[in-house]
């Protein structure tokens, strides 16, 4: 059976999704990245391998998310795509008539405007990460509850408290202040959810026409209180897809399927054995000019596989290309 693997390595979580020839989701894995993207990808590969039926053949692999290049080198990706595109592709696949895609992940929030099945515009948080998943995580931790409990408690709120949501630090001060004043925890929590939604609409959504059907995906879509706040604020239904947390990985798999369908390219996939290989990631400061770029490299058995992070092309190296002449002088 021909299958397509999408791997989405995000700031907080790593997702793998496997699709069959008719783009049906066969299996998926969702795990924490915990700051170790290489380990997370290898762990993900092991887990997905265990779930596989015997006759599976991987015909294409795509990586996405903030560690897409790193993950691409490890697995031998046929396609490396940014997470904005993959999310839009997945949403359009499940909801062809979608007009607005809201996506909130661990550290960023995006908005994609779709008309007639074509993404025509998008926006992404630029200078501030207020209102993303990490902040909610942090607040749950501070109140000593899980993120699920935070969501469930917030949903019971009857009289939400207004929280200043423009900046996460000030939102936190405001929450602490309201707690000390004696407001109920659930009302503060739901107030926080509303603040995050207002912040999203005022920042990322500024000046864009949010028409329904509206899809809400990404890790934060797990939070039912946020979903409710979106529904109330927009005064319309907001659809959360069933596999909203792995949409990036599904989108990547869809795209590699699409790419390979029109050509006879044989997959570069290095196989599931990659989950056992020891990779070494390191970095150094280039001293060739005053920019002092931090160049990161990934190697295996003393061989450099890839290198990136410089402002110029001096150290840039993608798999399969010649080493730069300056290599020796390092």
């Amino acid at each position: 059976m021909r299958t397509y693997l999408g791997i989405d390595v995000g700031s907080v979580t790593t997702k793998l999704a496997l699709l069959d020839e008719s783009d049906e989701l066969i299996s998926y894995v969702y795990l924490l990245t915990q700051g170790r993207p290489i380990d997370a990808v290898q762990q993900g590969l092991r887990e997905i391998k265990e779930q596989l039926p015997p006759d599976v053949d991987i015909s294409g692999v795509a990586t996405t998310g903030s560690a897409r290049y790193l993950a691409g080198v490890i697995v031998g990706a046929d396609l490396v795509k940014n997470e904005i595109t993959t999310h839009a592709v997945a949403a359009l696949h499940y909801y062809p008539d979608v007009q607005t895609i809201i996506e909130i992940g661990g550290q960023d929030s995006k908005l994609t405007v779709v008309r007639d099945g074509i993404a025509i515009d998008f926006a992404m948080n630029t200078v501030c990460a207020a209102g993303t998943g990490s902040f909610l995580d942090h607040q749950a931790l501070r109140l000593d509850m899980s993120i699920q409990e935070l969501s469930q408690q917030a949903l019971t709120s009857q009289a939400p408290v207004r929280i200043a949501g423009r900046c996460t630090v000030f939102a936190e001060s405001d929450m602490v202040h309201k707690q000390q004043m004696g407001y109920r925890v659930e009302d503060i929590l739901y107030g926080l959810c509303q603040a995050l939604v207002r912040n999203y609409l005022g920042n990322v959504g500024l000046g864009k026409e949010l028409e329904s059907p509206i899809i809400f995906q990404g890790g934060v879509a797990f939070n039912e209180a946020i979903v409710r706040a979106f529904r109330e604020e927009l005064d319309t239904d907001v659809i959360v897809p069933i596999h909203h947390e792995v949409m990036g990985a599904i989108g990547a798999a869809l795209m590699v399927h699409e790419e390979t369908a029109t050509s006879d390219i044989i997959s570069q996939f290095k196989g599931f054995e990659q989950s056992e290989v020891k990779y070494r990631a390191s970095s150094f400061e280039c001293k060739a000019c005053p920019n002092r770029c931090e160049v990161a490299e990934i190697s295996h058995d003393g061989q450099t596989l890839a290198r990136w992070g410089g402002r110029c092309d001096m150290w840039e190296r993608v798999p399969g290309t010649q080493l730069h002449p300056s290599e020796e002088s390092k």
Partner: protein
Amino acid sequence: MRVSIPHMGHLYIPLKAMFQRLGIDYVIPPVNSQRTLSLGSRYSPEGLCIPFKMTLGNMIESAEMGANAVLMPGGYGICRLGYYTRVQEQILHNLGYDFEVIQIGVSDRKFFGAMDMLKRVSNNAPWHRILSAFRFALAKLSTVDQIEQMTQKVRPVELVQGTANQLYAKAVHAIDNTDDYDTLKRTKADYLRQLNEVVKNKQARPLVVGITGEFYVVLEPFSSFDIERELGKLGVEVRRATYISGWTKFSYFLNPFGINEKSRIHKAARPYLKRDIGGDGWESVGEKVLHAKEYDGLIHLAPFTCMPEIIAENIMPSTKEQIPVLTILCDEQIAKAGVLTRLEAFVDLLERKRRKQNNVLRVTA
């Protein structure tokens, strides 16, 4: 007096030529680097824009090299930039540098103001020498701009990535080293030919993306994440309306006669924005309206905290002429990785839109 200049793209080339011809003692600060930006940011008020911080960094770096004066644009009616010369001079004094920031007027008396300024920094050189130096500088400027325009065309279609950039770097160096019109002319012809002969992908039909926004960030690649090169890597042809030579030609020589290259842009913007709002905000809106049919997408570059561009950003979505716009804020606190992700996604969006319109895209639904 030892004069220096802030960097803005390849502006140093004509200015250096002028200094040399007039026998002015000058210093060209090191090219913009992370050090320039760090120095500038350290001594700047946080809320000021990246052009202020970068140019202040240039001034500190040139002071370290022994300069005690710098030429910097300023004047009324533009935006906060009008005051920058005075604020920067104060900051440099506070840092202990005996340093003068000489203002090049960009509001009125542009040409004559520049002449007076040159008369002064050249220790009263005769007028004919000043004019001849100015003319040679303009010739160099327009040559670099032409080579740059050609580079922008070759970059997305070259077979070996990086060829055009290398040729461009060589050309800039060669132009910088020419002393006479003949060599300049030959250098120009030589590099235009070499760029023409770069092996290209004949099948490629690159997407066309326009670049608009605030003058400095559009022209200074370091401040805007080398965006043109990055787009070139993604196979996109870049077009922009702003070049220093064009600006100089109009504002120094033609505007006084009532000829304004911007009137077309302003007319296009007028249904949505009736007047100048300082900086280049009016032009940004106008360029979107004017080029909506011609470009596949538009990238709007704005310094963080730039009021005119923030106004423009918020007007753009409401124009009748629709074209995808990506606003990128330029600031020392913004990581390049995030900008590249947005650029990639933007180019994907344009590409998929085009493929779908041509029905090439397999419908995944």
